[in-house]
């Protein structure tokens, strides 16, 4: 047990001296990196604006109250659109994610050397490009509107759903699959009787979880023109209609809280 002696009194310590020094060294490096990054950001910041910001924030907050409640009448359709973008996008993503997940899972992939890396690449690239960037591309392609939002959310969610799903497939109990195989089942039968029942709970959980995230993401897609409540937010901000902005923020908060509650309930019921 590490201990130190001082004036003849032995006292207990959590770590030995070399361990402690190593730790301090890591902290030193970490802090140095942080300070370096901070300096570079600070160079690009106009500090006059930052000093002025508390006053600006109070000013903005004053303009935001009270929220313009009459505007709510115009918000119902955007809210409906937002929910549709999230729901249909999630459905689209799941449809595409299922085959990809089966190709990416080590135990079901048709070819480990050829198909699996492709599936993994699709997963990573879909995950690393944000839905807003997908929406930006799709709006130039198929025009602004809800449809672009649905596709953007769908493309973005493929990676997430497929990754979690293929991990669930890799974790299944192989004995059950072997038992089905021993009855002389074909490949498709093995899939539907041996593998699918085992991953069904994970699958349902993943879909609901992603739907919840997508509600949050679809609230901002309107900023680049892909439909939903973000459109109203963008136009309210650019016309400086702050009382509308605060109402929209409240609506977003409400939608997200409700969707989180629904998803928690469903996941609780499944697991």
């Amino acid at each position, binding site marked *: 047990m590490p201990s130190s002696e001082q004036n003849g009194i032995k006292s207990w310590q959590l770590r030995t001296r070399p361990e402690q020094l190593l730790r301090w060294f890591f902290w030193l490096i970490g802090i140095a990196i942080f300070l370096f990054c901070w300096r570079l950001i600070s160079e690009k910041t106009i500090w006059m604006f930052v000093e002025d910001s508390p006053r600006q924030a109070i000013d903005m907050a004053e303009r935001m109250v009270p929220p313009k409640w009459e505007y709510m009448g115009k918000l119902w359709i955007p809210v409906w659109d937002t929910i549709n973008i999230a729901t249909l996008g999630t459905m689209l993503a799941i449809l595409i994610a299922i085959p990809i997940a089966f190709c990416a899972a080590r135990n079901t992939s048709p070819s480990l050397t050829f198909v699996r890396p492709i599936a993994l690449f699709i997963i*990573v690239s879909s995950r690393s490009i944000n839905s807003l960037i997908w929406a*930006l591309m799709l709006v130039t392609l198929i025009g602004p509107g809800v449809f672009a939002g649905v596709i953007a959310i769908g493309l973005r969610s493929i990676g997430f759903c497929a990754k979690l799903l293929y991990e669930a497939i890799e974790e299944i109990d192989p004995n059950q699959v072997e038992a089905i195989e021993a009855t002389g089942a074909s490949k498709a039968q093995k899939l539907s009787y041996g593998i699918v029942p085992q991953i069904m709970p994970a699958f349902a959980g993943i879909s609901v979880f992603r739907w919840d995230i997508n509600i949050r993401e679809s609230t901002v897609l309107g900023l680049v023109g892909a439909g939903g409540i973000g459109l109203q937010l963008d136009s309210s901000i650019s016309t400086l209609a702050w009382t509308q902005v605060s109402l929209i923020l409240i609506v977003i908060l409400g939608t997200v809280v409700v969707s989180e509650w629904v998803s928690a309930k469903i996941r609780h019921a499944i697991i």
Partner: protein
Amino acid sequence: MTTPTQRSWKLQPFIKNPTLRWTLWVLTAIYLVLAFGTMEINWDRVAEGVTRSQRFLAAFFPPDFISRWDSIVEGIYESLWMAVTSTVVGILLSIPVGLGAARNLSFRPIYLFCRGILAVSRTFPEVILAIFFVKLFGFGPFAGFMALSIGTIGFYGKLLAEDIEDMDPVQAEAIRATGASWLQWLNYSVQPQVMPRMIGLGMYRLDINFRESAVVGIVGGGGIGATLLTSFDRYEFDSAAAILLVIIGIVMLVEYSSGYIRKKVQ
């Protein structure tokens, strides 16, 4: 011995209650009809888009790394700085909030207050936060840094609070029984228990923050997103493709290294 009867077995459905199952199916069908009915899809525009997408994709290839290389490098650096600083600051800020939001550590009013902070900062996507911070602090990486920090508080504080709530109370009691002060108690009983998972989550958040930093740029928060938006606005799709590839590459690199560190720590 009874003679074997001809029986066939059926796979048990996922939702066992038939009424619930069929209600769900019907509700889903009604929802889909309603959703597609209200969605305005301009199919002419989409069809146009399909032919257009060929030209669009052709414009993406080959990715042009060279002509905008300087601004790509600058944008990537800016994103990386933003990701690092916002992760560090966000985690530092989220520690007190997370401690306050753990039910077994704090008092009821503080608990509710801290949970409130977490809920609000988790609700709004970083992009919305960034819009407001750009208004407050002006264009540039500082606004993006603030937005990502606030987002980090919501994410990290919540997980920290949950981890503290799940910790082993026996160890905590043992330390308390030695007569440790509150800070010592925190340092010797709580912190060692949550640390391994928290380091892993910190790495994960760094990964998320880098990804998000690509988006806050679209609303003026600096970073590679600003470079990307500029190249889209200029119709330089080959540069945009290069930027996207660079983002994918770095995200993969960050993801693998953060996964490696997480494995090492746990």
